[in-house]
């Protein structure tokens, strides 16, 4: 991403925060370029797919069989979509998790992604570097995506480069602290006042450990590998007001007292209080598994973990609560989207957009079909996705509330805190890989030298960023 683009993105995202509209950037000059692309890309690019068109598209990130309810919904949705577009064949590919950074790189190099493919919002630069993303500016308008104007421009901007749009958002989140209310209760803590600073996290984790450690329950858990450690560390440093990189996007900015403070607390929790398990999470799913099976009291995560924890690990959603990120200064904001393969035909792109629009961007359909979610036992009432604004947001809140199954109290502190959001750093996955080592050092070595770990990581990140400019 260009430097200017990134800085603007940060600014936009800061303004956009939860519940704010972010209207400030709707008069973005870049829109002009987008329109030019629209006219040059063919006269009919902007019209919705003709239902008579016979076309086959492949789509990834179909929920795996282990997520039974969501998979059934996916298949039902494809069937319903086919009533409107009987000539579109949707070939779904399941994967779990939907994206693994290393495999994603391999896939882009190979050009073996599906016609519509799932990416993290941090991936745009990598996809563009690999030359795999189609410019969809000409295809996306309020006819093809009726709710377009109600999508937070701050979110759409993350998917733009040089004014051109490359993806459609399907979810977004802001990081917080997920905790097990039942364990809090059993440990004599008040589940309605979760910790909001690292000192409180440490204290509560110790209480849980002291009371329930004999049952094999740990107070807190964190990650140390598979980019998950780095992702968590960045979320945690954001919480205490540190950034990962400076405004130029070229220099590491995490070697400071705030980050050291977080790491020291984690170290003390692991080694002094022993309120963390001896094995940190090594891959995506490890902490979620521990939470779902009731082995830990707290971890840093996003609200979309809740359906997973409930569905796959059989936790009760009444037991899962969420608090703002400890420190509460800024919260890491991220999300997922679908992009469209560059080599796909215009019809395939249109069909892909039609499907994504139906499944992820239409109120009361697909992921927003709350009565169905309720009937299928999925938690309803989670504070995400939150990319809608205006009328769509109001309608969404209304229908969500009507079917809510999650007690409002469980997420009250998280929603009320209104922590300003900050997007992930540029080249996020590379930085995460480097920071894995820092987390690993703190969580596996009692004598870890926090300063040295951070300064080594700083050197390495600077070198990698220099190589990516």
């Amino acid at each position, binding site marked *: 991403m260009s430097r200017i683009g990134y800085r603007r993105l940060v600014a936009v995202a800061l303004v956009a925060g939860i519940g704010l509209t972010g209207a400030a950037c709707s008069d973005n000059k870049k829109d002009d370029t987008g329109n030019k692309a629209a006219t040059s890309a063919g006269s009919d690019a902007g019209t919705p797919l003709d239902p008579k068109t016979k076309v086959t598209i492949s789509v990834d990130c179909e929920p795996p069989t282990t997520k039974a309810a969501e998979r059934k919904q996916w298949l039902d949705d494809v069937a319903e979509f086919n009533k409107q577009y009987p000539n579109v064949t949707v070939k779904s590919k399941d994967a779990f998790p939907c994206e693994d*950074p*290393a*495999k994603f*790189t*391999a896939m882009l*190099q190979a050009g073996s992604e599906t016609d519509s493919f799932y990416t993290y919002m941090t991936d745009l630069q*990598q996809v*563009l*570097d*690999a*030359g795999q993303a189609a410019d969809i500016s000409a295809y996306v308008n309020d006819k093809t995506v009726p709710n377009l104007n109600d999508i937070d421009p701050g979110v759409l901007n993350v998917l733009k480069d040089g004014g051109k749009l490359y993806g459609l958002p399907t979810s977004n989140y802001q990081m917080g602290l997920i905790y097990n209310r039942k364990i809090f209760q059993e440990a004599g803590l008040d589940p309605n006042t979760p910790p909001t600073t690292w000192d409180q996290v440490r204290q509560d984790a110790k209480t849980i450990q002291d009371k329930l450690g004999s049952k*094999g329950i740990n107070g807190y858990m964190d990650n*140390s*590998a*598979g*980019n998950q450690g780095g992702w968590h560390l960045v979320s945690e440093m954001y919480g205490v007001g540190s950034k990962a990189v400076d405004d130029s996007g070229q220099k590491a900015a995490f070697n400071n007292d705030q980050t050291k403070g977080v790491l020291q607390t984690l170290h003390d929790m692991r080694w002094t209080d022993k309120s963390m*398990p*001896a*094995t*940190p999470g*090594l*891959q995506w799913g490890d902490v979620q598994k521990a939470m779902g099976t009731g082995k830990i009291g707290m971890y840093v995560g996003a609200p979309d973990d809740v359906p997973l924890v409930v569905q796959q690990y059989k936790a009760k959603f009444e037991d899962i609560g969420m608090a703002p990120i400890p420190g509460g200064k800024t919260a890491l904001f991220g999300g997922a989207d679908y992009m469209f393969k560059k080599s796909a035909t215009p019809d395939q792109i249109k069909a892909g957009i039609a499907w994504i629009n139906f499944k992820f961007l239409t109120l009361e359909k697909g992921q927003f079909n709350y009565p169905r979610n309720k009937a299928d036992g999925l938690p309803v009432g989670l504070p995400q996705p939150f990319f809608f604004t205006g009328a769509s947001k109001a309608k969404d809140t209304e229908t969500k509330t009507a079917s809510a199954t999650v007690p409002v109290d469980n997420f009250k502190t998280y929603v009320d805190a209104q922590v300003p959001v900050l997007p992930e750093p540029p080249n996020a*996955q*590379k930085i995460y*890989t480097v920071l*894995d*080592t820092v987390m*690993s*050092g703190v*969580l*596996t*070595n009692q004598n*870890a030298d926090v300063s040295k770990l951070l300064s*080594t990581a700083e*050197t*390495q990140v600077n*070198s*990698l960023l220099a*190589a990516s400019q």
Partner: protein
Amino acid sequence: MAATTVPENTTSHAGRPPRAAGGAVRTGRGRKVRHNLQAHGFLIGAVLCFLTFSWYPMVREFIMSFQEKRRGVTSWVGFRNIDRVYHDPYFWTAWKNTAEFTLYALVIGFVVPFAVAIILNELRHAQAYLRILVYLPVMLPPVAGVLLFKYFYNPDYGLFNHVLKTLHLPTSQWLDSSHTAMISVVVAATWMSMGSATLIYLAALQNIPGELYEAADLDGAGLWSKIWHVTIPQTRLVLSMMLLLQIVATMQEFTNVYLLTGGNGPENSTMTVVYMVYQYAFSYNNFGSAAALGLFLLLVLGAFSGVYARLSRNAD
């Protein structure tokens, strides 16, 4: 297994027999050309595969080390990739780990199967049963073996610490401490793969002429002396072949560390050079630097192989 029947089935449709050599008189030269063409016809399949998947990638490895690809455009960058990986803060860590891994793998992975083979060879009972046992783990899918060990190694609820506790021995952090992670990986790897080596040694041991031991007995040699002066020299060929294979295999270590410790391991203590290559390519999306690092490994192994070849020639 179908080991003995498959070859016939698969080769039977490899091609029908070519027409028998024509009866007409041919010049010697013509016959020679024809013979050579025929022979190269036999070679062509393998040669093409070697060319595409082995020789060409070697050349390409070299070229890529000096290139960089950005936004689909490849450009020459001189020694920048090499410089970058050389100055990676963990460059030397990765080499140290690879050396350490190789050392452990030799001490444990090389000695243990040989010792087991010697013991098995002395037993007059239950040998078939024991051989099956040793080979059993080889037949597990490696991922099953590795994940099983990961479960055993868990410091909180794993079997190993439980056994140690029961025996009143100090427990360990196993994979979760930079001190023990590497050796834990080697132990798991040895458990999974020692079966093949053991069987090969066993066969070599059975081929040692009994008279040699009888002669040693007459000289009044003790057990260790017999192992040193008869067993090892007599199995030298197999031992040295296995040594080379073991080292080459060890240098390739990826699967076990990737699955057991997430690759880097506690404080990068299990990060091998190959894992670093993987990381540069697929985590940092920097194929040029990955190739440059591979080049270092290539040079080191090339030097190593050269020395080995020279030594074994001298020994012959």
